[in-house]
């Protein structure tokens, strides 16, 4: 059984009478990518910054790598790597100089190795101010990795990046998992959660709505697998026979919704044997979020 590297119990944070985080509890297992997902203002950054010892909780308990956040901040900071939200660093230092500075602060000197690993070596002599958003994120991850910590906190690392840079960052984060790192990720991109995470917690208004593995979340809250048949005859019969719910489209097509993947697979085998024309739409975290909250998060992170 994997060790719990983060344990949070009834954690609450209030700012001037407003409760940003309300009695949340969760645990993060060693070696997993754990995502805290939610819209802007949900309390993601407040939670992660409490765990990074950058904020004091109002009440509740938390340990990081076995150390209590309330009185062992120095020990925790030495053992974790952090990439804060809206990450920034010294503008007029080069990418290499910024990573080296972090290396000096953590007492590690594998700058070249880290730069190569995250792809900073190609632009290491460029000043941070002159880098693109994607390059800056790579420097940020490099500055986080140079800590040589096994637990990394990445607070919205892909916000504001173009799709290409976002994909590159995802690959880097997947590499972190392959290296055996535990990653605590916050994001408002559902695709990112689904693509990267082992488990995720959906945070709304400071409270955890649901927490589970991505597979379970989609299975239980995704609304099932949708199979749309584009012709009449036997295929329609199979959909009516096997699907948990059948929807008739305005264009006359039929969509069968399967709650279970197993049922959907059996129906699809039969449809393929008949050489029927079908469209399959698997449920994702978007559907999970919509079904749980009744809303959707837009590109800017706002709940709509």
């Amino acid at each position: 059984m994997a060790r719990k590297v983060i344990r949070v119990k009834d954690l609450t944070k209030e700012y001037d009478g407003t409760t940003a985080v309300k009695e949340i509890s969760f645990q993060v297992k060693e070696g997993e990518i754990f995502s805290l997902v939610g819209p802007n203002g949900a309390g993601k950054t407040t939670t992660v910054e409490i765990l990074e010892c950058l904020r004091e909780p109002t009440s509740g308990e938390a340990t990081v790598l076995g150390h209590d956040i309330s009185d062992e901040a120095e020990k925790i900071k030495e053992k974790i790597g952090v990439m804060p939200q809206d990450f920034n660093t010294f503008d007029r230092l080069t990418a290499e100089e910024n990573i080296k500075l972090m290396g000096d602060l953590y007492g590690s000197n594998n700058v070249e190795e880290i730069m190569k690993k995250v792809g900073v070596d190609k632009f290491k002599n460029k000043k941070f101010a002159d880098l693109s958003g994607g390059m800056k994120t790579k420097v940020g991850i490099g500055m986080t990795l140079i800590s040589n910590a096994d637990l990394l906190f990445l607070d919205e690392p892909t916000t504001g990046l173009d799709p290409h840079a976002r994909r590159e960052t995802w690959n880097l984060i997947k590499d972190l998992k392959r290296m055996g790192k535990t990653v605590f990720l916050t994001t408002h991109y559902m695709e990112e959660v689904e693509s990267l995470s082992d488990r995720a917690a959906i945070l709304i208004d400071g409270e955890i709505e649901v927490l589970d593995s991505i597979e379970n979340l989609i299975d239980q809250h995704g609304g099932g697998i949708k199979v749309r048949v584009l012709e009449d005859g036997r295929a329609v019969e199979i959909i009516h026979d096997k699907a948990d719910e059948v929807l008739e489209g305005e264009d006359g097509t039929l969509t069968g919704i399967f709650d279970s993947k197993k049922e959907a697979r059996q129906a699809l085998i039969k449809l393929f044997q008949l050489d029927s024309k079908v469209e399959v739409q698997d449920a994702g975290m978007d559907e999970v979020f919509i079904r749980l909250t009744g809303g959707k998060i837009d590109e800017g992170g706002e709940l709509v």
Partner: protein
Amino acid sequence: MNRALSLFISLLKNWIRSKSGVFFSVLFPIMLLLIFSTVFGGQEAVEYTLHVQNDDMVDGNATATSEGFIQALDSAESLNVKEVDNITEHREERTFGSYRGLRIKEGFNESAVNKSIELRMKVIRDTMRRANFTEDGFLDETNESDLENFTAESAEIVLLLSEDDQGAPMVKGTLHGVINSFNSRMLGLEENDSTVEVTEEMRDERGLQPVDYYLPGFIAAFIMTNGIIGVTSNISEYKRNGTMKRLTATPLKKRDWILANVGQQTVLAFSLTAVMILVAVLVFGAQAHLGPYAIGLIFLGSVAFCSVGIVLGGLIKDVEAASGAGNAIAFPMMFLSGAFIPIETFPDYLQTVARFLPLFYFHQGLREIMIFQNPSDAFLAYLIIGIFASIFIMLAIKTTRWKDI
């Protein structure tokens, strides 16, 4: 300590690569030093313009005596004489600056000649009395009486000055000097006829110049502004753009952060001092000496004012507000402390205000050490800046937030 050193090097590199940072921290003070020392360093060559209206004319030509008087005025080093037709009208044409006018009245020549005769007689009578000529019979009573009875009116000139003209005493002094010389010449004395002879001795040493006053003042003032304005702005900007949060999430300690900032400001202070002394010596021949006492006081000053910047940067969240607060403290202190202008020229109450400002003791102390080479007179400066530095370094530790930034 290694963390503080690494951060110090990074802060220094980040600063050196900022063109505007280097300009306002080092080049701007040098420019001001050059301007002040040049503009206020040439006071001995100041000339006061005197507009002269000559009404003493005969057949449309100025009389010889009035012409001679004008020439005598013009030969004075501090006066620049310009003849005009009518000083009243000429004055009305002007809208800015002090106007100095002199009108030589009609009859100047005749009065001056007659008065000179009266004076000559006075001199003769006085001379004879001094020599007891009357007792020896060289001069009879009648002749003496003739001398007594001859009187004449003085020649008249009118000097026109403004009440607020600061150059008025200089112009009046010069004018009286010229009149005295003129009197002597009218009495028949030559230029060299004098009861008192002045012997000029030129000593082979350089006197203090304005640059010698300005140099310590500028060094102190800009170490202060770099600390209070520069550090405050930098810290609030690091807080705004997230760099500070990035640093606080690492094992870096609060004391390392303060040490690195103080270190950076100290290096900046010594660089500024070195460059300013170099420029002042090469351009103006300033006689500044940078010994261990000056280095010690500069170190204390940079620690003190950098700590003020760290306190302000730590307390104020908003970048604009932090920058405004830095300016609001630094600029009045810069001018009220007498760093640029001797406080002896201030009203009494402002002199009292100056003595409450740490910058006053900082630049006074530096002047005693660097210019007068009198470190013992800088004891009070050391004491006050030392206490100030200690208080603010403690406040900096207290007010720097390492959580909830």
